[in-house]
Every structure is written in C-alpha cells, then in structure tokens.
C-alpha cells in the first residue's frame, strides 16, 4: 500500500451533489419511511439480485449441476419403474409421464430450501452486517432477491425437465398449461425460500441450518405424491402426503400434463378428507407462501445478537 493516500489536495472528501441529495432526503424520508414496493425497495432488491446473478455467472457450476441432477433423476427413476404394468399410475400412460411433475416440483423445492445457506454464510462471514446496518426500505428485499434468483434457476430447470420428458415420450403441455405450471413453481419457491431465509436469520449457524435442510428435504419428497400416487400409500402416509404443500404443487402440474382442457373446478386429486380441485390446490399454495412470509417477518426484522 502506498503511503500517499493523503494529500492530493484537489480531491475533496465531500461530494456537494451527494450532500444536497442527503439534505432533501432528511425532510421527506423521516416522515414517510419507504416500505415494500417503494422505489427504494426496488432499488435495493435489484442490487441484491444482481449480486446473486454475478456470483452465478462467475461460478456457473451450480447451474450446470442444477440442470444435470434432475435430468439424471428423471432417467434413472424412470428406468427403475419402467416395467411397471400400465395403468398402475393413475391416468398416466407410463411412469416417465407420471414422474415429470414430481421431479419439477422437487427440484424447485430443493433449490428454494437451500436458499438460506448463502445468507447464513454471509451472516457468519459478516457480510450480512453490511446489509443490516444499511437503511434498507425493508429486509424483505433480501428475501425477494433470493426468491427471484431461485425462481429464475427453477424456471430454467423446469424447462430442461419438461424438454427431456417430452423427448422421453411424456408429451408437451400447451402454452397456457406451461404458464400455469410456471406460476405454480414460482409460488412454491417463494414460500419455501422465505422459510429457509427465516431459518438463516433464526438458527445459530450453518451447521444447524444444514441439519434442518437435511431432515426436511428427503422426508418431504417421500411423504408427497412426487414418486408414487396416494393410492400406493398406507393410510397414515396418505394423510401426511395430503398435508404436504409439495403435493399441492405436484398434482396440479401432473393434471396439466394429462388434461389440456383443465378448469379451476377440475378435481386434481383425492385427499383422505375429500377431493381437491385445481382452484383449491392453487389457493392452498398461495396461502402457504403468504403464510411463510408472514411467519418470518419477526425473524428477519429482529436484531441478531
């Protein structure tokens, strides 16, 4: 480091424009603290999202692995059950077609579940302090930035899975169905990302967070309709699987694959306590995500000790 940090006298430390801007800010901002959806919120959210995309661009291996992994699932799991007699998997013509919806949802879910990890590492390395001492319009910008990033990843993964499924003979849903599938994936991702980030603020460290991710990830997969239909399961598991938010994303997508002429009133699956329509499933997903956001609010706004 050169020892001449000092006197280039021409350089002032002050910046008159910035000074002016600060003065104008004092009057307006104190009276009206900006909230979610304010320009300030959008500015900070975009900057935080940009950071995540720069990281991805310079470390693309996560994206590559994120695409290769579900495709391998699709091929290997599909092969495993290839010879199961037709008709066992409900209306699906073959297991590959049945499995696609499960892999789409599980991949998005796993990505969102891990969203808290980078935030936890930021916390442990002290980078998060940089954000927490800044006058953020709302700390939800950290959540929204992560959700936007994971959502983009999930949509790319979903496209890859849909593409490979089509090649494997599962057919290709029409544009309307594809859009609704996208919306279902995004809703689930938002809710799960929020929960994961809530944990990143609440748990003591990354060891604990990884433990929670570990014990949630596969059990939620197996206790859902991702791999087998409800009718395969014993009664108690049917009950659990019908409480699992993943099922409310998987079954509508599976239905979309088989029924281009879907309606909100179409029954997408039979829970032990009654039939679930497309509209109800979507409603439950939205409620899940909003509930998750409300739940983590106190966690992310508290001052970490």
């Amino acid at each position: 480091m050169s020892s001449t940090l000092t006197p280039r006298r021409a350089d002032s430390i002050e910046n008159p424009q910035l000074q002016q801007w600060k003065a104008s800010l004092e009057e307006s901002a104190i009276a009206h603290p900006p909230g979610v959806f304010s320009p300030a919120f959008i500015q900070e959210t975009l900057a935080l999202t940009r950071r995540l995309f720069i990281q991805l661009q310079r470390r693309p291996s996560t994206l590559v692995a994120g695409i290769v992994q579900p495709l391998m699932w699709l091929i290997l799991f599909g092969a495993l059950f290839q010879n199961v007699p037709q008709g066992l998997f409900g209306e699906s013509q073959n297991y590959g077609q049945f499995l696609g919806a499960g892999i789409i949802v599980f991949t998005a879910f796993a990505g969102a579940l891990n969203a808290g990890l980078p935030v936890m590492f930021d916390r442990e390395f002290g980078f998060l302090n940089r954000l927490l001492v800044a006058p953020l319009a709302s700390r939800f910008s950290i959540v929204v930035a992560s959700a936007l990033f994971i959502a983009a990843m999930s949509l790319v993964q979903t496209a890859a899975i849909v593409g490979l499924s089509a090649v494997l003979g599962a057919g290709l849903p029409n544009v309307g169905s594809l859009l609704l599938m996208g919306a279902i994936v995004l809703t689930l991702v938002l809710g799960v990302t929020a929960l994961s980030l809530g944990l990143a603020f609440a748990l003591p460290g990354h060891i604990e967070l990884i433990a929670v991710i570990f014990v949630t990830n596969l059990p939620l997969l197996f206790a859902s309709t991702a791999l087998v239909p409800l009718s395969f399961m014993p009664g108690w598991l049917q009950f659990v699987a019908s409480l699992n938010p993943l099922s409310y994303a998987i079954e509508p997508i599976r239905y979309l694959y088989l029924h281009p002429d879907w309606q909100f009133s179409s029954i997408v699956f039979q829970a032990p306590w009654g039939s679930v329509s497309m509209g109800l499933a979507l409603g439950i997903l939205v409620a899940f995500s909003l509930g998750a956001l409300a739940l983590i609010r106190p966690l992310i706004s508290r001052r970490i000790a």
Partner: protein
Amino acid sequence: MAPAVLIEGLQKRYGEVQAVKDVSLEIKPGEIFGLLGPNGAGKTTTIRCLCTLTLPDAGRLEVNGLSVIDYPRQVRQRLGYIAQDVALDKVLTGRELLELQAAIYHLPGAIARDRIAQMLRLLELEDWADKKTGIYSGGLKKRLDLAAGLLHQPDVLVLDEPTVGLDIESRTAVWQFLRQLHAAGTTILITSHYLEEVDALADRVAIIDRGEVISSGSPAELKDQVGGERITLRIREFTDADEAESARALLQDLPMVQDAIVNSDQGNSINLVVEPNADALMTVQQQLKDADMPIFGISQSRPSLDDVYLAATGRTLMDAELAAVGQRDMKKEAKQQNMRR
C-alpha cells in the same frame, strides 16, 4: 446542538457474560473519539448496539439526537460502520461491491457513479476497482471497506479496530486518511487496543475495561490526572537483578521519587515515577554517580495512556491483553468451528 453520539448507561449481557456493564459517553460533532480497552472489554458490543445490530438490555443511545432504538432506519442513514473483520464478497469486484453499497443506501444513479469514482480515487483503488476482491491484499481490502463505509457520506463514521493486522505503512495511511476526514468535519468513533493509535488520533478518549468506562477525557487531561513524570534507566545493557534492585532501593530514597520498580521484561530496567521537576534527571544521575554505579541509558517522559490504564485498574494494558489471551483463543476456536464449511 445535540451531541453526535450519546450513550448513557448501556448494558448488554450474553448469557453468563456481562459484555457491557455500564458505558456512558458523549461525542461532540466533528470530534475523533477513541474507545480504548483490552480484548473482551466490550468495545465491539458497544458499537454493535450503537449501529443498530444488537438490541441493548438497557441504556439510552442517540445519534444526532435521534434514538437508535426508536428510529433505526434514520440512524442507519447517518452512520457509517467499518466492522472489525473486513467482510467482502470475494467473487465481486471492488466496483461491484461499491455499486451494491450505493444501492442499499439508495443513492440515485448519477450521484452513485460520481461518488464511487470519487472514493476509488481518494483511496487510490482505481487500478484495482475492476478486479475481484478475492485477490486483494489486507491493506487493499481495508481501503475498499473504508470506501464502502464512507460512500453515503455518513455524519458519524464508526470504526471497530480499523488497523488491526495491518502493516505499519498501511496503518499510517489509514491514520492519515482519518485525519483528512476529521479535517472535513466528519465525526469519528474509533475503537482500539493500541495506545499509540488513540493517542495519535483521538481528541477525546474513554477507557473501557470489563464492560465499564473507567476514565474519560482528552489524552492530555487523562495523563495530567495520573500526574508525575516517568524516568526509565538502565545501569548496563543487561543488568543483573541484584544490581538493579540495589539501584532501585537507592533511588527510592530520593524524596522526589514517588514510585520505583524493576522491569524484568525490559532487561531489568528501572522505572521511576517522579514529581514534575526540572532537575529530576540530574538528581537521579547524581545519586547513582555517588554510589559508583554506571548508567547505560536514561530517558524522561510524560505519563502514557498505559499509565492511565494502570492507575485506573492496577494492571497494565499489556497484562490485561495477556490475561484475555486464554479466553480469546477459545473464542477463536469456537468461531473457526463455526466457519468450517
């Protein structure tokens, strides 16, 4: 005019540990204020409470008259915080980090660009701006951290041990930069356990020990309060203990000598506290000459902040640091365990 920073009766406990017991201080606008104390004294905890990162158990905290507890967002806009450990994203370039920093302080685009260019120039980071921070040296990282903390032109800049781990040259450069900021009117709160740092920079100082402020005032005031002058002398380059002890006993008898000790850490040199007196050096030299003792070296000095600390706590800052080492290693280990991926 409201003080730039007001802390009154601050308390914070972590489980068993009372990290901050009773800290009160007031920083005037434009002042450099030093918070001096050994490892574990509660400096970082005090600063975290001030910077809205930690909720205190009790106490009043204000920045420019605004309550830190009630108006955290407004306080954040006015504060710049440079943490004890530099935390950068090693994948981002310096410029990208500053762009992120500008956005989370909501600087408008044109002003942000101008200000980023200005800070890169001021901290002489232009050549490094578009390289990833992962390859920066320690001094460069600290400079980027300073640029980030100052980007939004805070009214009060808070630095937690800003020169720990820096080489002498980098340290001097940071000091110079802080002086320049001071000249431009920024209020600065700096923590340190380097006496020289606080002595060289601070207009006023609070000495904090085990979570309590034990003394505060300007460095000169504090030294005057302790009083007396220091004389350090060596009989030989390496004096043996007996000879040093007999010289000490001899000098202790002089009426102007208030205290005399043999410092075995420094080759059995003899440290005297004497009444401020023009003839002190001469008198000491004469006393030794009369006893036929040689003098290898002798010097006179005003009390240091270490003497202030010694007078207030009965230990030197060095001793306190050593005592904290055991604790600190445990802290470090726990941290490393935590960090391992």
